């Protein structure tokens, strides 16, 4: 697999998912693994999702980037197959295995046909249980990772998000790039890769979901086959980070015509009783569609940007309210001014009844639309498990949105939106902005 291609901006939906008729079974395998399953025999394939909690946050001290590099190597040779033999075997089955990692989880996304399911699962098992990490593969994938790091160093968006995360989370893994630095990645050895795998790919942190042409009994066997020979435990999760960011402005000089600004402050926990109120509030302020206040004020009324948004960043061990905007160097200061004003206005006044009604209709109407394929449903279900939402969550989620009142919003707005604490990191050559701190 190639780690070179940069991330393509995705449409990110923050809130969780489902259609009332989604019929989830909880499956327990003979070996004791559990999964959520939706049987759907319309199309002869299965989408399988596996997550290992902890992800790249489990990098050993001084080994930043090891888990990311290891993730890129999982299917670069396994058992008696080198990288090319493994890829040829996978492609001949028309199966697809994707391995990815972020700071809270390592993910395995597999897709295989019913007609050759046994062979595909056996092949995936080899990658999970018996990866080779051949030195030539380590060196080849490392070169791709280094090339990506080199590109990130000159990408204004990456520089901005990297800067704000470092300021917010310092030495905690959340404070640095999970890819590591050129120095840390260059220094990684094969032993580090082997150790990285042991830290993250363990039985005590695994979550599984499947959707498609597979029954509960078969899924149980598949889980035992894929996971039964993994180590029982992995490394401990790191402690919660100290939040180190205060309000203000940081400018990173970069010679480019359009400044990119990333902004944020502390947020709210996923299981806080006011989470839904905060979620609805953010939707009005800077959420998804074209109708948010930030889009209206910054783009529609003033034409200052192509896009501006805010979102609740809910990580396992930290939460922020974050946002992003980009404007020409001579216009970014006005965009930042408008965003700050909207932040203050929402913090003081909350939202109007009309806005609340409209956003509820949108959120509750949009929710069932997410469950429109095997792959998206599998992805949603594994996410629900990791967030420790109940198996009945889908049926109750819209009620939780509908239960949010104007008073709830006002309370949570005053609690989490704080224009004084809001920090902007601007990458570019902005005119008329003085970096205070």
């Amino acid at each position, binding site marked *: 697999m190639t780690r070179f291609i940069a991330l393509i901006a995705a449409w990110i939906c923050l809130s969780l998912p489902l259609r009332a008729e989604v019929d989830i079974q909880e499956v327990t395998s003979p070996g004791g693994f559990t999964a959520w399953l939706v049987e759907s025999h319309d199309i002869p394939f299965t989408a399988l999702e596996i997550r290992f909690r902890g992800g790249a946050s489990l990098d050993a001290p001084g080994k930043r980037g090891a888990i990311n590099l290891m993730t890129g190597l999982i299917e670069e040779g396994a058992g008696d197959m080198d990288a090319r033999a493994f890829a040829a075997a996978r492609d001949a*089955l028309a199966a697809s295995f994707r391995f990815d990692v972020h700071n809270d989880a390592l993910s395995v996304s597999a897709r295989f046909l019913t007609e050759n399911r046994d062979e595909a699962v056996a092949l995936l098992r080899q990658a999970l249980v018996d990866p080779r990490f051949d030195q030539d593969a380590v060196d080849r994938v490392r070169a791709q990772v280094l090339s990506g790091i*080199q590109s990130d160093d*000159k990408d204004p968006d990456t520089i901005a998000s990297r800067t704000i995360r470092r300021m917010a989370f310092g030495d905690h893994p959340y404070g640095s790039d999970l890819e590591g630095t050129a120095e840390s990645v260059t220094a990684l050895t094969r032993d580090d890769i082997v150790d990285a795998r042991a830290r993250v790919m363990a039985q005590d942190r695994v979550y599984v979901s499947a959707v498609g042409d597979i029954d509960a009994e078969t899924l149980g066997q598949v889980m035992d086959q894929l996971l039964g020979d993994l180590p029982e435990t992995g490394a401990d999760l790191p402690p919660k980070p100290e939040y180190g960011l205060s309000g203000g402005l940081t400018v990173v000089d970069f010679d480019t015509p359009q400044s990119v600004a990333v902004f944020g402050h502390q947020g709210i926990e996923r299981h806080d009783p006011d989470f839904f109120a905060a979620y609805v509030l953010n939707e009005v302020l800077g959420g998804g569609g074209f109708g948010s206040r930030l889009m209206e004020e910054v783009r529609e009324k003033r034409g200052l940007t192509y896009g501006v948004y805010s979102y609740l960043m809910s990580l396992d061990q930290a939460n922020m309210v974050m946002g992003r905007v980009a404007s*020409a160097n001579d216009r970014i200061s006005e965009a930042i001014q408008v965003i700050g004003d909207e932040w203050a206005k929402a913090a003081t006044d909350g939202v109007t009844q009309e806005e609340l009604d409209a956003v509820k209709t949108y959120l509750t109407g949009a929710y069932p*639309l997410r469950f*429109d394929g095997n792959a998206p449903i599998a992805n949603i279900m594994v996410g629900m498990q990791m967030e420790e939402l109940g198996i009945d969550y889908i049926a109750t989620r819209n009620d939780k949105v509908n239960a949010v009142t104007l008073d709830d919003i006002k309370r949570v707005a005053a609690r989490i939106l704080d224009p004084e604490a809001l920090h902007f990191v601007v990458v570019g050559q902005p005119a008329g902005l003085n970096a205070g701190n």
Partner: protein
Amino acid sequence: MRLAGLFSALFLLCGLTARADQVTDFTLDNGMEVVVIEDHRAPVVVQMVWYRAGAADEPAGKSGIAHFLEHLMFKGTEAFPDGALSDLVEANGGSDNAFTSWDYTAYYQRVAADRLELMMQLESDRMTGLILSEEDVRTEREVIKEERNQRTENEPGALFSEQRMAAQYLNHPYGVPIIGWKHEMSTLSRQDAFDFYRAHYAPNNAVLIVAGDVTPQDVRALADKYYGAIPADPDLKPRTRPEEPPQLAERRLQFADPRVAQPYVLRTYLAPERDPGDQKRAAALVFLADLLGGSGTTSVLAQKLQFDTQVAVYSSAFYSPLSVDDSTFGLVVVPAAGVTLQQAEDALDTAIEGFMADGVDMELFETLKMQTRAASIYDRDDIQGLARRYGAALASGLSVEDVQSWPDILQAVTPEDVMAAAAEVFDRRRAVTGWLMRDDAPEEVTQ
């Protein structure tokens, strides 16, 4: 202008892009083509309206107007003023957006299936009812300039790509960027937008795709009611663009920018596209691209440049078969540390020469055939993807029949077809070779 119209004989071939029994197509009395793709697994529908008008249909000097109009189409109509369309879509739990390419402009909504009628009412209303104030145009022009800043001015790779395309096409408007040249974008006016709108937005220049939990009968009744009420534009011009002259001279360019982190070599060749009733050469080129660069592990370029030697950290081949006029076939090599762009290009040339001498690896070829078959299964899980595929094909001049026969045409491709297509396409006189470089490093060693 192709007004397909005939009720296509529905071949019940298995392993199609969509099962043929999933797809129904018909044409309204005013010439608007309609395709219905059924998927009853979830109560969702996607409505897309595709206009056979894109950036390559713009008048000279007005680059970006197709895309600018796409933005302005959300401003409002008499019946639904002040951006009411998106508000109503959102109020119904839906999402909407639009996109513009060289060959088409498309608008879509994704919403609960029982809201389809409102979506048709809104979309048909703005086919002819657009209202724009000077203020709308002034503000939105700033938005598209910021969009260009974000996509292009801030991205040296995108600037490089614009220069390459301009060199690739000597005469055809594919050489002009979709978003527009910066200096022309700032002159685009309200009148320019209306001129383009009135010339191209009409039912007889549009394709309606409805995909999801719907029946063809219901879609037909609604489409007749809303779109059928709009008269055809009798003055619609046939779609003709300036064509390429014979390309007789290889072009080379070097683009340097201090923001370039990772230099690379990219070469594109002028290549034939899928034509109505004639998709065989394009199918062979799809396999050629997959054989050369479809996988980072097993394809020819990866084997020769990343495994047998360590010249590259990344290599690929790409080809867009869907296009109204001549498309391009591309090769890219990202050199490994210590390898120069000249060395990378030389290694690429050697790899291609080797491929032309050795021919097709049959094991890899059979694997690609298997994957093509499997795609017809996996694709059924993504109804919006299917909708896009039909829409893009029909808006590019193909018929439903062409779309449905495409998988079989792919399956019928032989290694001889691939080699013949390769011999034809790899003509340096029709190629542009570009180097993306760091500034002030005309022939440097990468890190």
